[in-house]
């Protein structure tokens, strides 16, 4: 009886699959680690943007160059204080309501009140005038259009909010609209046939949040998911041997860095930070832990950040003996247990990190080992990442290990300014004072003169490289598995889009 049932089940499944294969495939399943549980653009905007459910006024290509989105054109007044964004006419939201300046200003004002990138700009007001969006600034800030390309500044329909202003629906202007939403695990999208741009070839897309890297790799291998984002090293290696799948590894502007409290008596001298940096075996970490040997950081900003990647900088190297020499210069002597001592104090510090990116605790363990070789005792605390900004604020942090995304907006100045500008930042410098760098960053943010920008960027990059307010460890690789049958797949190193609008199945 059971055997018959089982046989019938097998036949049914095989027939079902055969039937599906015979049709021209127009649906796609995508798996990624990120759960989507909120209707709020400030919380889950990254997913709505990547899935092309909602759009920004400003778009960016895969090189980070800005291009028109829902705004067709933008200009700034001569004093650099008033920006005007002309809007694309004839655009409708998924529910049929009209996209106009009032909808755009409502969305942007909301985004400005919420934590998000707009807080990085000196904005005075956001209003509408003559069908355009007008943003006034307190001082010039040239990267403003780049901020309007960020996920937290996407434009949902005013109808997506209830009377109290709470987001209650997912209504945007993008080439895909929401068919079903099961927070936090999945979103099903359907093609928006009324889209203002080229209508997608895919009719249906399912986004599945799968938290375990093992699950994602298996989803790719079995063909249950046609595109899988963020693979772990072993899954990536395994999928490279699967014929029906193409694996892609792309350098992205995310960097594993060590935040160092330069206000701490052990770490205030740049030589101490340089010694810690010299003790780090980056090639070893990149080979054994993240498994992309070419991604060992030679400087803070990776090549993907074009203008910010210093071409002539001397690479950060691994030289434990030189590290010991520098620490000896600073008055440290080796104690009985091999740990350095100065004026009765042991060189013992605490590193804070978090498990959300599984490689971080492993890298922390490697650092613990490598620093012990130069006589530095490192305790590792793996907890919530909110402990890092909290430790920055109350001054208790020694060192912290995290992955910082400098490609958050196509122009990284907003992030770099808040990390290394005057006073440092929660995810950047701590207790480090360099007024020349702060001034150069202000200049970069305010000017659109490319020569002045370039000169000041170089100044900043050099200072960060020699003084090491943060110690870069490895650059990130974005790993993706794509089913062989898909064409026109473009992987965005800025992680702004999954490129679903252009993708189709080969016949």
């Amino acid at each position, binding site marked *: 009886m059971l055997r018959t049932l089982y046989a019938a089940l097998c036949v049914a499944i095989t027939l079902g699959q055969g039937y599906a294969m015979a049709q021209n495939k127009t649906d796609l399943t995508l798996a990624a680690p990120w759960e989507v*549980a909120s209707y709020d653009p400030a919380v889950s905007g990254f997913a709505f943007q990547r899935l092309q459910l909602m759009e920004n006024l400003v778009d960016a290509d895969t090189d980070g160059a800005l291009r028109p989105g829902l705004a067709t054109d933008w200009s700034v007044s001569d004093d650099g204080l008033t920006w005007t964004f002309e809007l694309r006419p004839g655009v409708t939201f998924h529910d049929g309501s009209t996209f106009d300046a009032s909808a755009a200003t409502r969305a942007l004002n909301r985004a400005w009140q919420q*934590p998000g*990138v707009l807080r990085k700009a000196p904005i005075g007001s956001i209003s509408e005038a003559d069908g355009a969006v007008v943003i006034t600034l307190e001082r010039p800030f040239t990267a403003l259009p780049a901020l309007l390309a960020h996920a937290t500044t996407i434009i949902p329909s005013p109808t997506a909010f209830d009377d109290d202003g709470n987001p209650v629906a997912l209504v945007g202007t993008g080439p895909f609209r929401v068919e079903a939403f099961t927070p936090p*695990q*999945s979103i099903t999208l359907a093609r928006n046939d009324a889209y203002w741009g080229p209508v997608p070839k895919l009719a249906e897309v399912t986004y599945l949040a799968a*938290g*375990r890297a093992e699950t994602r790799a298996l*989803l790719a291998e079995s063909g249950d998911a046609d595109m899988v984002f963020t693979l772990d090293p072993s899954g990536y290696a395994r999928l490279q041997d699967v014929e029906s799948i193409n694996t892609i590894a792309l350098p992205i502007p995310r960097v594993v860095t060590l935040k160092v409290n330069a206000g701490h008596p052990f770490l205030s001298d740049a030589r101490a930070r340089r010694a810690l940096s010299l003790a780090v075996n980056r090639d070893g970490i990149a080979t054994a832990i993240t498994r992309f040997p070419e991604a060992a950081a030679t400087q803070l900003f990776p090549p993907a950040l074009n203008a910010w990647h210093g071409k002539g900088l001397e690479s950060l190297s691994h030289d434990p003996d030189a590290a010991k020499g520098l620490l000896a210069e600073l008055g440290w002597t080796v104690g009985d247990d091999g740990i350095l001592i100065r004026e009765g104090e042991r060189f013992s510090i605490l590193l804070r990190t978090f498990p959300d990116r599984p490689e971080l605790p492993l890298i922390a363990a490697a650092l613990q080992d490598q620093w012990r070789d130069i006589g530095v005792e490192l305790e590792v605390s793996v907890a*919530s990442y909110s402990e890092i*900004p909290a430790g920055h604020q109350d001054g208790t942090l020694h060192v912290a290990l995290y992955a910082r995304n400098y490609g958050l907006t196509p122009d990284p100045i907003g992030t770099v300014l808040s990390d290394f500008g005057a006073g440092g930042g929660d995810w950047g410098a701590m207790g480090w004072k360099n007024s020349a760098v702060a001034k150069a960053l202000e200049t970069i943010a305010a000017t659109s003169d490319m020569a002045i920008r370039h000169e000041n960027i170089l100044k900043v990059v050099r200072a960060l490289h020699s003084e090491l307010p943060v110690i870069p460890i490895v650059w990130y690789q974005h790993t993706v598995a794509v089913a062989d049958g898909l064409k026109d797949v473009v992987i965005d190193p800025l992680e702004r889009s999954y490129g679903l609008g252009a993708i189709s199945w080969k016949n």
Partner: protein
Amino acid sequence: MSSSILWRGPTVSVPFHGRTDEHSRTVIAALAARGLQAVLVALIVGIFSFVMMQALPGDAAYRIAAGRYGYDMMDAASAETVRAELGLDQHWTAQLADWISALAKFDLGRSLVYGTPVMDEIAVQLGHSLLLAAGAVLASLLFALPVGVAAGLRPGGLVDRASLGLSVLLRAIPFFALGILLILVFAIRLDLLPVAGFRGPEHLVLPSITLGLGLAAVSSRVVRDAVTDAMAAEWQLFSRTKGLSTRLTMFRHVLRNAALPVVAYVGVQLAYLIEGVVIVETVFAWPGIGHALVHAIFSRDITMVQGTALTLGLLYVALNLCIDLACRGIDPRTRAAGRTGPRS
């Protein structure tokens, strides 16, 4: 068929009151007791989960901001925004009072992290968890009943010893490894079932079997012991002596007696399942309540934790009631009907 001499254990003698009245009266009493229990559970669970969340180390505003905005956007400024928005600097007694007065209006509030009504989130996740729990129990019974009965009928026999070994093995494998193993075999090698997700009934099969195998490892032993005990009981011998066939003895007496501890045990397992076997939900990308509760605790989503704990507490009460009623259905002694004398 409810002859008290045929049942093992002490005979309960109850004066005759008329069966239907007595029966419905005890059912109503059971319901009333459980109803009272439900109200108490709601209050105690709500207050306890609140107090425990307050007692956790670390600044709640920072944890909530982290849960909301992710590490790329979260910083001290966003934590301060959260603190102001949610009134986290209020005294905790005021926060708790707010929650209880909202609860009285059957309002569980909004998730502090996602901004969505807690009730909506729980409705989605609880539905998926119940489905998975039902699938897992069904799978475990499909394995445990035949194996347990076969083992129990011949204690010390081949089936008994082999199933004991298998039980130990299955219990020792972590759910995570078992899940991956099943995916590798059924989804990758044989290509029969999907790896993960929850779109159709076929998605329920592998997570149910993963959990079911783990549960069956224990429940098959419970079945086996219950059957062994029943087979060794005097009433079993009596029913054979009075001329019942092996089959009739088996179905009328042995299985019915053995069912009691098994039903009670399945109840315990079900409670454990609804709470969510977090790792199985994560491996199979299943949007269950256990997974949601763990996330809520990490990101200090107090209203979500309270709402989830409350729902689970009430569910346990309901579950206990169901198990009580099921056991009453199986065991006539608890029904206390006044009829005596064998009918079989």
